[in-house]
């Protein structure tokens, strides 16, 4: 099951990230996972939040350039080689990863890896075939 990720285009200037975070905070939206890719004059903030639709609405209202993209959030074992196992699966099936970031779950021994791949559907099927748990929207909004 793919989940929605927010991507926010940010100009590289002092305080811009804080402005975005302020909007989310004021609207009681919690950030589950985050990654920031940076270039010299701009950056791309990627977020998984507790309320995706709500976040899009409030960010747009503040003229913040936000888009959504579907990503796969897969559980991997929180131990050496955990990520490698799953990456090998993708490689063997010829699936190219655009970008990746990870976070550790609050309880338990699992980590969550967020993938953006060219063919989301195909990647999902492969993971499911190997009984790898994929996070769903409801997992994100509650955990």
């Amino acid at each position, binding site marked *: 099951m793919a989940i929605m990720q927010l*991507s926010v*285009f940010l*100009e590289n200037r002092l305080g811009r990230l804080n402005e975005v975070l302020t909007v989310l905070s004021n609207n009681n939206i919690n950030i589950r996972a985050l990654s920031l890719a940076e270039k010299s*004059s*701009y950056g791309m903030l990627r977020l998984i939040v507790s309320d995706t639709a709500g976040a899009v609405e409030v960010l747009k209202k503040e*003229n913040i350039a936000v*888009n959504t993209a579907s990503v796969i959030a897969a559980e991997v074992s929180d131990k050496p080689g955990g990520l490698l196992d799953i990456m090998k699966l993708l490689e063997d099936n010829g699936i190219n990863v*655009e*970008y990746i970031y990870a976070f550790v779950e609050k309880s338990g021994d699992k980590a969550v890896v967020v993938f*953006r791949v060219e063919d989301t559907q195909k990647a999902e099927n492969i993971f499911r075939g190997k009984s790898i748990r994929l996070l769903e929207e409801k997992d994100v909004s509650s955990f």
Partner: protein
Amino acid sequence: MDYFNREMETASQSMLREVQLERLKKLVKYVSRKMPFYEKAFSEKKVDPEKFSSLDDLKYLPFTLKSTLRDNYPFALFAVPLEEVSELHASSGTTGKLTVVGYTKNDIKVWSEVMARALVCAGVTKGDIIQNAYGYGLFTGGLGVHYGALELGAAVIPISSGGTKRQLMLIEDFKSTVLTCTPSYALFMAEEARESGFNPSGTSLKVGIFGAEPWTEGMREQIEKEWNMKALDIYGLSEIIGPGVAMECEGKEGLHVFADHFLPEIIDPVTGEVLEEGKEGELVITTLTKEALPLLRYRTGDIVSLTSQPCRHCGRTMPRISKIKGRIDDMLIIRGVNIFPSQIETVLMSIPEVAPHYQIIVTREKHLDKLEVQVEVAEGILSDEIKKLEDLEEKVIREIESTLGISVKVKLVEPKSIERSMGKAKRVVDQRQI
């Protein structure tokens, strides 16, 4: 295809040059005798008006600037005594003082003739009803079209500008076939029409003659679609005569300059050198037949290119200028290269991933000019992949560089982050300390 003056409008190159030279020789003598300003300029430039004998020597004659007209406010530049002047017009400059122009009876005759040519060039004939929504008054637009219509023998409605409801009523009731006004007013009228339940695409209008302000091909398409009529460009300026200096035919491949009356040149606006055909530069016009206020090499400030190829659509042989590409006042000189914001705008309009909101920042680092174009990424198609943004940045750079011929830096900025303005947008921020 019809002409108002077939003999002149389809004259051979050699015949046109002959007429131009004859008139220019007379003009040079005339202005040196009647206008102290030129008499002085000739002696400074060591031009002997009696010996002037070739069109190629035009480049040795002095330029005339708008400021010359303003400095001689109101009548000091006139070549004839006031009792020979039959009409006065004036245009307001952005700096406040009026630019005054005068016409003798014969000047009005010339004006009527070139405007009649322009109307015929647009496909207007006797029997047409011209709704003339250019302003009547000190502005030359209204009366210029009016005189042309009288000369041609087409009916003219002198409605002047404004009063949109009445304009629409007359279009409907009088069944006007030709609309003359500024292109922005034509669009405004269409909008008003739709709002009041009037279908602008179902009128008897067949052609619009639009000018007095620069307009783009995009505006043309919109006007033609909204009104279901042809939209053609007319060029003129009061200093030269008013509307009727040049006119597009239905082929829409440049504006035919009535060059037996108005001799065009294209110059490099910085060096003043005459540019070869096809090159973009400042349009300079010498009035060949004016009596009250003849002008030598008047610098229009308008950026165009010029071709002397006969028109493949209408067969007119007179030189053609392109639509106005920009104004000298907007020009930037970057590392010696002339750049117009409109060139950058055209490039950005052709790339759907960016919005046509931009700002040009000019700086100077270590004696070298740097040009940065900040452009908003279009909201809907913003990618979350850095790679795609990089590709976009490169694409914008590549397209701008191939158009301008100089290197630029491009900065993608957030949608809606560039300040919007109600009037003229501030496109250029020049931070150079010169």
